[in-house]
């Protein structure tokens, strides 16, 4: 009973809470990092160095009036933020944060579950997240959100193809779709896939920016163009759900990137003997560190680059990234067959 | 500024140029090309002004734009002045500049209230909004203008604010006797639009 129900339940509770806490502090981190990039201080008022700012934000959003526009499609309007939040959280079920730890005399694996189609599960669940944005735009009965949702649906579908193709290259290397299996295969092959699949890594990063609607691909919520994009008409907690979903998706993308390309919980250079002293740092710390670097890159890019235009975004996706991803896939297959 | 009310002036002084001052080539050319059109010349603090016949304004504009000696390719400004005591109460003023010759010229035409004047948008597209503003502020109609609507004031505004007989503080109760009626009217119109 303990093995079957209690431990998974505890894991789910821990992961969900850690995620939500991480997401709120992700917001603070982003504000701080961008502020430093722009020679500002960022939030400083709530708590020392503004560390309690997320709490204040959450309070504000929860207490705010939740407005539904008069001619909105009411139940779709309510459904949309939930549809965008749920997939972002459900994905964490298969992400391996670490290997195994011994706790209270038990061996506990640091992932909720390891299913044999883990990677496919990630891709398919995140692909459902686009409904939140599309339905939000449609149900608001407002023209700007509608434009944003049209942009979002085209953008997310296009970049999903490129991302999925890069994932296939990784699967070719590892020979498994299991997330844990991919990490262990990197350990056994003694190299992070970022080094032998650099092209896939870069395409995944760019596609990840686009999939999470981050600058320079933040067209569905381009404030300067679409007055806030798909969530223009949202307020209060429903707006907060969209916001949290975006940051949760960022963490998902960086976790997946860490797992697939940066060796998950493995220490750097897992096969180099004289670096074994790095092994005293627990695996989940490495995982968090690598994910954090990825998240920092997301923020850094946002602070630096202007935004693409819709047609340019499409051109980049279809004419550059997808052909490159296909070429990379074919090349990987050829090399793999030649070596076998 | 409660200074003593003096009788409103009947028109600008338009001082004629000194006899010993040579007339610029562009103006001389205009005078010889269209002898009837130029009513008077004026020179004041270094600015040349040509006062032309209202009916001939489009021809004058075309000449000034195209003639090689004039080539006024920039229409800086179109504006108007109101002189209520005069029968032709408005002056429509065109401020021109020539990039080839580097000189300025003002063209003036007198228009009576209710009379139209030809639009010069076909010669200088820049005059489009400027003429709209003159229409909005003075109520001078420009015939042949592609899009003569109010520009600064709301579409349903009554009166023309820059006229001298228009009070500075606005029409007051005359227009907004009951603002709620006006709002209702507007709302009804908007809803009709949506349907």
């Amino acid at each position: 009973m303990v093995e079957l129900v209690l431990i998974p339940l505890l894991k789910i509770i821990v992961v969900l809470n850690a995620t939500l806490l991480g997401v709120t502090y992700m917001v603070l981190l982003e504000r701080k990092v961008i502020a430093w990039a722009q020679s500002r201080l960022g939030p400083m008022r709530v708590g020392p160095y503004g560390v309690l700012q997320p709490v204040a934000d959450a309070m504000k959003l929860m207490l705010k009036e939740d407005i539904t526009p008069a001619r909105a499609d009411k139940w779709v309007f309510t459904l949309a933020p939930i549809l965008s939040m749920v997939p972002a959280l459900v994905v964490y079920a298969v992400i391996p944060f670490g290997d195994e730890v011994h706790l209270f005399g038990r061996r506990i694996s640091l992932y909720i579950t390891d299913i044999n189609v883990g990677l496919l599960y990630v891709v398919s669940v995140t692909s459902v997240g686009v409904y939140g944005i599309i339905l939000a735009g449609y149900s608001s009965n407002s023209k700007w959100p509608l434009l944003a949702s049209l942009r979002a649906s085209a953008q997310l579908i296009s970049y999903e193809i490129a991302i999925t193709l890069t994932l296939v290259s990784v699967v070719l290397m590892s020979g498994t779709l299991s997330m844990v299996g991919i990490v262990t295969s990197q350990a056994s092959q003694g190299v992070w896939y970022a080094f032998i699949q650099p092209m896939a890594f870069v395409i995944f990063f760019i596609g990840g920016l686009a999939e999470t609607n981050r600058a320079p691909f933040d067209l569905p919520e381009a404030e300067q163009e679409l007055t806030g994009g798909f969530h223009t008409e949202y307020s209060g907690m429903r707006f907060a759900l969209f916001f949290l979903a975006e940051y949760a998706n960022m963490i998902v993308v960086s976790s997946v990137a860490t797992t697939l390309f940066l060796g998950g919980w493995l220490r750097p250079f897992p096969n180099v003997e004289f670096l074994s002293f790095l092994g005293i740092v627990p695996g989940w710390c490495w995982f968090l560190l690598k994910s954090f670097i990825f998240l920092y890159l997301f923020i850094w890019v946002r602070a630096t680059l202007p935004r693409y235009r819709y047609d340019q975004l499409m051109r980049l996706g279809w004419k550059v990234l997808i052909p490159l991803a296909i070429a990379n896939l074919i090349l990987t297959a050829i090399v793999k067959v030649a070596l076998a | 500024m409660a200074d003593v009310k003096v009788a409103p002036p009947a028109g600008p002084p338009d001082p004629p140029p000194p006899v010993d001052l040579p007339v610029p080539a562009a103006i001389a050319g205009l005078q010889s090309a269209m002898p009837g059109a130029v009513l008077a010349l004026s020179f004041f603090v270094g600015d040349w002004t040509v006062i032309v016949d209202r009916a001939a304004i489009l021809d004058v504009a075309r000449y000034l734009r195209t003639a090689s000696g004039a080539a006024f390719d920039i229409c800086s400004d179109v504006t108007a002045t109101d002189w209520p005591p005069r029968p032709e109460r408005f002056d429509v003023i065109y401020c021109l500049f020539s990039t080839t010759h580097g000189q300025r010229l003002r063209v003036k035409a007198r228009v009576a209230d209710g009379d139209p004047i030809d639009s010069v948008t076909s010669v200088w597209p820049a005059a489009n909004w400027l003429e709209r503003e003159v229409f909005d502020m003075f109520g001078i109609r420009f015939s042949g203008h592609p899009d003569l609507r109010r520009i600064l004031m709301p579409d349903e505004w009554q009166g023309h604010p820059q006229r001298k007989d228009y009070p500075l503080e606005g029409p007051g109760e005359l227009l907004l006797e009951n603002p709620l009626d006006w709002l209702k009217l507007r709302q009804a119109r908007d809803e009709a639009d949506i349907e």
Partner: protein
Amino acid sequence: MAEAIAFYVLAACILGFAVLVVTAKNPVHSVVFLVLDFLCVAALYVTLGAEFVAAIQVLVYAGGIVVLYLFVVMLVNVKRPPEAFRAGGRHATLGLALAGAVLVEAAAIAVWSRLSPAAPASAAQTVPVSGNTEQVGWLLYTSYLVPFEVASMLLLVAMVGAIVLARKES
């Protein structure tokens, strides 16, 4: 026992959503129900132990194709007047005929598979690999290679056709 309960609950959901897809007045609502329907079908696959097919079902149908449906529904103004729903005599007969044809087909398959049940099971037993994904892959590239390639050609042709149709003469 648990499996049977799951099956009947899911089947009821699938049928219920399918009815809602057809009866919803708003085409966007129809599409949302269709998504929910597909998700339930995916869950059904999971109960059958076919995780790969379930994941593909969600990825391709729920996450891809229906998004395009939604895209089209929102892009094209399909707000029909109420009369269109009432005066649909010809469409109703056509729909009934199609539904009848599908029913007959399903019944025929059921009867036929009851008469000779061993054929699909024997194919799976010859697969030398274990694991859901691997088995599907193996079968696709051995026994069903030709249909698989034909299907992909068909899709390619359809795609080219769509581009030709959508392209404006310039």
